[in-house]
């Protein structure tokens, strides 16, 4: 291969004047994590509520929940990203839409990206939470009713505490998916890790150094998340169950 490797490029200054390319990429990782964590908070909250509602005996609530899931699952992430960035501000009341569009960058990209990833991921969380609740034996819900608990109390004190401990491993892989999916935000101009690697390649013409660095940073991030979540999983494991392994598939 005819390619002049030059790893010293990371110590060179990036043209924006914020410091070295290395710092430029590390700040990119910061934006990746800031986007992923904020989206994850939304996803966890919304996904838990919707996943729970889909297991209730109320037919219409279940149907609405199913419609929500199908809506966000059958449109590609990049299309949803463009809808949040270009279309939603136009459909909102004019004052609010203008306020969003006129936020100084990177916030005008950050906010739509977080909303998009949050709702996109909430659907996957909802699926996991629903599966977790349904994996419990029917007798648990019945026992709650027999003890005189209301439906809400049965969920709060009997079903959900168990379900969340069971679905923690698949939720871990969903969290890693949010980190990876946040790279799609570069299409609306958010300079997160992948976006900055691409920008670095354009400024310095050091294509493979830039992408290699981004690759290594993603791998290290994954490694840290896996170790942290394994520790958490050990802590909340339900005694007596064969712990489930993370499921395959998805991105």
């Amino acid at each position: 291969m005819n390619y002049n490797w030059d790893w010293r490029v990371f110590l060179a200054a990036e043209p924006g004047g914020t410091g070295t390319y290395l710092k430029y990429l590390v700040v990119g990782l910061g934006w990746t994590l800031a986007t992923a964590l904020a989206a994850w908070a939304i996803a966890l909250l919304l996904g838990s509520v919707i996943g729970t509602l889909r297991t209730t005996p109320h037919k219409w609530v279940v149907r609405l929940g199913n419609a929500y899931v199908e809506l966000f699952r059958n449109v590609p992430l990049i299309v949803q990203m463009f809808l949040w960035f270009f279309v939603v501000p136009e459909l909102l009341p004019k004052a609010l839409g203008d306020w969003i569009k006129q936020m100084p960058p990177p916030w005008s990209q950050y906010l739509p990206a977080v909303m998009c990833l949050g709702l996109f991921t909430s659907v996957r969380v909802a699926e996991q939470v629903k599966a977790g609740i349904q994996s419990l034996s029917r007798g648990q819900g019945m026992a709650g009713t027999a003890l005189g608990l209301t439906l809400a109390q049965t969920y709060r004190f009997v079903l959900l505490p168990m379900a969340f401990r069971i679905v923690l491993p698949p939720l871990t892989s969903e969290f890693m998916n949010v980190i990876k999916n946040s790279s799609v935000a570069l299409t609306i101009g958010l300079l997160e890790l992948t976006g900055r690697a691409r920008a670095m390649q354009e400024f310095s013409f050091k294509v493979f150094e830039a992408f290699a660095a981004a690759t290594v940073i993603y791998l290290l991030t994954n490694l840290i998340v896996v170790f942290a979540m394994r520790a958490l999983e050990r802590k909340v494991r339900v005694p007596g169950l064969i712990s489930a392994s993370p499921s395959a598939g998805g991105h």
Partner: protein
Amino acid sequence: MFAGYDFDVIQRSWVYLFKEGMAFTLTLTFLAMVGGIFFGTLLAMMRLSKFRLLSMAAGGYVNLMRSLPLVLVIFWFFFLVPYIYGAIRGDGKPIPIGAFYSALITFTMFEAAYYCEIMRAGIQSIARGQVWAGYALGLDYWQTMGKIVLPQAFRNMLPVLLTQTIILFQDTSLVYVISATDFFGAAAKVANRDYRLVEMYTFAALVYFVISFGLSSLVKNLQTRIAIIR
């Protein structure tokens, strides 16, 4: 609510959107599915091989692909493949291969990692006694795999393989980042040319929704039809 919007833009760009854009998307999806399942099955066989070196190489590749964002992988292949092609065919200078082939190679190699995990689960779902029965009949490894294990693994995993293909269909929209004209790329180009962002992106979302939702309903249907009653 829709006053001031111009939905005629869809009708005006219909041919471009579908004959160029959607044709690109569907061709890419189909070829990457076939290639991805082929290489994915090979990777799964390698991962389950008793030769440590083979299983470690396949495992490393699959884990690497599954840890990286697809967008980053698209960039990697977009820049790397011309260099590799140049090293093979010419004097080592990069030879451009175009967005379609770049996307095809990327999605085949990327999805192979995901199809591999599905096929691995499929192969592992076959009772070990069947492999022994194959060997007892005098079949070799490739015959046992090809005539006994893989056909059943495919059948068991067909719904999952198809679901992954729907994900692949949606993911092909990311070729936007290398400026390819797939369905979404075509919609984006029309949107910017005629300044009809709201109309075009809403329409694109609708088309993706109808196709993905339709296909996943079909898969659900298939799943109940081909389920083996045990």
